[in-house]
């Protein structure tokens, strides 16, 4: 049975009409979502877009309306069982401050069937974290390293990261993503991550999803993203010609116009200026800006 299951791409997360309101505020406005196993999905959105609410629903931390299945379970009613297969880092500062590193290792071994203490110790050996330190004695970066070591030593099927690198310096963020990709991701696991530092993550994602005002306004795989979207820094004399090609977005930088195109054949832009793949952040501004009905007036 087990081999049969692993051969097919299983659905990891499936949501239909997922809705969540807090009083009068609509945090999630009927989301439909399907994430296959083995993907690394970036969930991008402005503050208040509903990213954390969506993750919390997936993790069984909040009740919701609509249908939601994670690894075949209902997260709200089966959180305890679900957490055998799911790991999450909600925020860097959630490790209890009183706990000793060795106690955290022992407790994880005691309650988690998929936690490998030897693996965690191997990860910790690469850091300067001492086994007898308490979390409150660790720096913010070290506490994150500890949490990450615990998570990476857990053989989970889904890893959820909510702003995992918030408040960490650039060196550590780089390390974080490298070790996530090299030591953790093996093609069977699914990773769902939200972050503000999109650029640093762009190269590790397989899919990207934009969330705005409680709705998914855009989603595509990174292969599609790279072949479909083009950003052209247009030579000043070619601006009018470039605008004829119906860009989805235009912005100004250092006195030059930068136009973003969708579904276009790159050859068409060769003479207009410098052609490259846009960053996720730029596409996000284009999509969400257009979605909100702004920025259109500027481009046309």
């Amino acid at each position, binding site marked *: 049975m087990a081999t049969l299951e692993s051969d097919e791409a299983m659905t990891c997360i499936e949501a239909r009409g997922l809705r969540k309101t807090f009083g009068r505020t609509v945090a999630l406005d009927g989301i439909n979502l399907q994430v296959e196993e083995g993907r690394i999905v970036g969930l991008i959105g402005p503050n208040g877009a509903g990213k954390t609410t969506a993750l919390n629903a997936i993790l069984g*931390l909040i009740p919701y309306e609509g249908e939601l299945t994670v690894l075949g379970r209902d997260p709200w009613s089966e*959180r*305890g069982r679900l957490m055998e297969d799911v790991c*999450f880092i*909600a925020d860097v500062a959630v490790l*209890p401050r009183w706990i000793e590193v060795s106690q955290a290792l022992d*407790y994880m071994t*005691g309650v988690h*069937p998929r936690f490998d203490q030897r693996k965690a110790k191997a990860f910790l050996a690469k850091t300067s974290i001492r086994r007898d330190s308490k979390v409150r004695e660790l720096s913010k970066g070290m506490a994150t390293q500890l949490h990450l070591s615990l998570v990476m030593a857990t053989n989970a099927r889904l890893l959820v990261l909510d702003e995992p690198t918030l408040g960490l310096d650039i060196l550590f963020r780089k390390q974080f993503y490298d070790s996530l990709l090299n030591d953790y991701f093996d093609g069977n696991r699914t990773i769902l991550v939200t972050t503000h530092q999109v650029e640093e993550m762009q190269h590790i994602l397989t899919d990207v999803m934009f969330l705005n005002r409680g709705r998914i306004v855009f989603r595509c795989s990174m292969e599609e993203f790279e072949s479909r979207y083009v950003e052209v820094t247009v030579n000043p004399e070619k601006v009018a010609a470039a605008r004829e090609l119906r860009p989805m977005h235009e912005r100004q930088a250092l006195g030059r116009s930068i136009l973003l195109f969708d579904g276009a054949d790159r050859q068409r832009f060769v003479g207009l200026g410098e052609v490259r793949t846009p960053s996720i952040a730029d596409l996000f501004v284009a999509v969400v800006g257009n979605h909100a009905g702004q920025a259109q007036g500027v481009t046309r």
Partner: protein
Amino acid sequence: MNQPARAMAGTRVESRTGGISEARRLYWSLLRELWEHQSIYLAPLAAAGVFFLGFAVRAFRLPARLQAAVGLEEQHKLLQEPYTFAALLIMGVTFVVSFFYCLDALYGERRDRSILFWKSLPVSDTTTVLSKASIPLVAIPLVTFGITIVLQSLMVLLHSLVLTGSGMGASILWNNVPLWPMWAMLLYHLLTIHSLWYAPIYAWLLLVSAWSRRMPILWAVLPLLIIGFLEKVAFNTTYLAALLHFRFLGGPKGDPFSSGSMQMHSTAQLAPWTFISNGGLWSGLLVAALFLAAAVWLRRERGPMGS
């Protein structure tokens, strides 16, 4: 021939390591509480230490006081008193510890957001709340018992040495302070009153701890005061006050500590049947179960503060 059998054994081992029983999770969660709340044993240990110092100073005057005492009754009182006081002191300290433990148990993890870490582990809310309820119901009574018998043993040892040294002999002490019956009575009292009879008090505190967004101590105490006050003003009755008084100090008859006489040396006073057949016990346990069920529901419902 052996191959399939070995393969079978292999999968069986795998499935066993794959599943962790709820009992094991409860055990580790209980241990976790003891790691976090060291005051559970440090506070009574400190009280025991301070008490023993004072006791040691007085112990050297015991032979003189015994000789000055008139009659067997007074001698008995003189010998017995420090042991009763020691037991009451440790019980008082651990009750205060239980009180504050319960108020913090489901509130602290929401305040410092560590609930997000705990909820990322495969431990259900029911197991978590049960492990936290086990602290005042099981762990603290046992800690109280353990520390008290060690303390009283040291006291008897010191008294015996002093009496033997003075030439009076220790037998007068052993006749008046029978350790084994005292300890049996103590354990009985802890398990019946401090655990079962007080269960609704702890469950109420845990419920408030799971519910309140700030200052759980006020939410635990103020509503009772206000309701009691309104009851007095509106109906000129004191049912709530009587109920609380009954719960804290009443207790079923047949318990050596609540009978008022504080006689600790006769197990003949034990009346487990009277205790078990007391309606107040069962209604209290029912209320405790309801409060705990509500606390489980709230633990699932409530996230960290400020979100």
